[in-house]
C-alpha cells in the first residue's frame, strides 16, 4: 500500500486552460465587463434624465432598484431592439415549448422552481441563451403567471411617474412590487436605413395604474427574478407566496 501513498499525479496544462473558462470563473470575468458597460449606459441615461427633469423626482424613488419612474405618465420611446430580443418579453404562450428537464439542461445556472401554491401548474419554458434568461410559464386557477430568471445584469423597468411601487423584505431579498402598466397608444417597428438588420421599436404609451398587470422583482445570489401576471383575478398575496417559495434565506 506504500506504493499508493506516493502517487503524485497532476492535471496537465490543457486541463487548467480548459477550466479557466469554467462558468464560475467566466461569469465573474464577463460580469465585471458587463457591469462596467451597463454602469456607463445607466449613467448616460440618468445624466439625460437629470438634465431634462425639474424638479428631481421624489426621494422615495431613489430607493428603488428595479423600476425607474418616468418624468410623467406618458411615454414616447425609440428603443433599438437587440439582436437577442428583449429579456422580459412575455409573448405568446406557444413559445413556452420546453419541458422541465429540457430547460434545466439548457440553463447555465440552477433554476429555482416555486413550491407554492400547490395548484400552480407548470406549462412550459422558454430560454434565451444570449441573454442568459429563461421564462417559466405557469397557470394558477386557469390564469397565466410567468417567472423569469436571468443571470443578474442589473436592469430596471421604466414606469409612470404616478406608479405605486411597494418595497418589502423576504428573507435577505429586497422585493419590489408594481401594479399597473403602460397602456400603449401606438407602436411601430422601423428598420434603420443605414443598417437593414437593426430595428427600432417606437412606443407611445400612457401609464395606467389600474391596468391588470402585476410584477414582483428581486435579486438573489446573482440571479434576477421576475414574477409577472396580467391576470385580473390573481392576488398580490399569491405572487408573494410564490416569491417566498423561490427565495433562499
Amino acid at each position: 500500500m506504500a506504493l499508493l501513498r506516493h502517487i503524485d499525479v497532476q492535471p496537465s496544462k490543457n486541463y487548467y486552460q480548459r477550466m479557466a473558462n469554467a462558468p464560475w470563473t467566466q461569469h465573474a470575468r464577463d460580469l465585471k465587463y458587463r457591469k462596467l458597460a451597463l454602469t456607463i449606459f445607466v449613467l448616460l441615461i440618468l445624466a439625460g434624465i437629470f438634465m431634462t427633469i425639474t424638479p428631481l423626482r421624489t426621494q422615495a424613488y431613489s430607493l428603488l432598484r428595479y423600476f425607474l419612474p418616468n418624468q410623467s405618465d406618458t411615454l414616447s420611446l425609440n428603443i433599438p431592439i437587440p439582436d437577442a430580443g428583449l429579456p422580459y418579453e412575455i409573448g405568446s404562450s406557444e413559445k413556452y415549448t420546453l419541458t422541465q428537464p429540457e430547460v434545466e439542461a439548457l440553463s447555465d445556472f440552477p433554476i429555482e422552481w416555486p413550491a407554492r401554491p400547490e395548484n400552480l401548474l407548470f406549462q412550459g419554458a422558454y430560454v434565451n441563451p444570449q441573454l442568459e434568461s429563461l421564462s417559466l410559464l405557469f397557470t394558477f386557477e386557469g390564469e397565466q403567471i410567468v417567472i423569469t430568471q436571468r443571470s443578474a445584469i442589473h436592469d430596471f423597468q421604466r414606469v409612470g411617474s404616478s406608479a405605486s411601487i411597494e418595497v418589502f423584505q423576504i428573507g435577505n431579498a429586497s422585493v419590489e412590487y408594481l401594479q399597473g402598466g403602460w397602456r400603449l397608444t401606438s407602436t411601430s417597428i422601423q428598420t434603420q436605413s443605414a443598417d437593414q438588420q437593426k430595428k427600432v421599436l417606437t412606443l407611445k404609451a400612457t401609464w395606467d395604474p389600474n391596468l391588470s398587470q402585476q410584477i414582483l422583482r428581486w435579486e438573489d445570489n446573482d440571479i434576477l427574478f421576475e414574477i409577472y401576471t396580467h391576470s385580473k383575478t390573481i392576488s398580490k398575496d399569491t405572487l408573494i407566496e410564490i416569491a417566498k417559495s423561490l427565495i433562499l434565506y
Partner: protein
Amino acid sequence: MGRKKSPILSRHAFSTLYERSHLVIFRYIFGLHGGPITEIEDLTGETFIHAWKARRTFQGNEDDAIYWLLRIARNLVYDTFRHQKTQKTGLQKIQNSINQTDKDVEAQIAHHEKVQVLYSLLSNLPPQKREFIVLRYVLGWRIKDIAHYFGMPENTASVTLRRIIEKLRQEWLEDKIEVE
C-alpha cells in the same frame, strides 16, 4: 419561508471550493478509474460542472461539500465503467506517476512490476472496496473520515479496510508466485 441557502451558491464561494478540492477530486478519480489522464481530466471537469449546476441543492458545511463532490465524481466514474467497460483495462499508466527516486534500472523495473500487479489487483476489487483503498491510501484520509463519508461506525470502517488489505495481500502473494 424558503429553504436554507447553500454555502457554495455564489461564484466566489464555488471558485474557492474548486481551488481547494480539485486536486483531491482529480486524484480520487484517478485512483478509481486509472486513466488515461485525459479521461481523468474530463471526468474531473465534468464533476465540477455537475456540482456547479446543482449547487443550489447542496446543504451542509465545507467538509460535506467535499463528500458531495466525491459522490458526484464516483457516479460519473461508474457511469463511464458501465458505458465504456474500461474497468479492467484502466490504471495502465499509473506507473508513470509514481515518484521514482531509485535510479537503479533493475530496481525501477521491479518497482514497475509491483505497481502493475497492485493495480491489476485493485481493478478487480468491487467498486466500494476500491474506494476504501483510494480514500485511505491515495487521498490519505483517516479511518474516522472514511467512516463518516460512508456513514458507518469507525470500527466497521476499520475492520472492512483491514479485510480488504488482507485479501489484497493474499492475492498479491498468489500473483507473485504466478509471475515467478
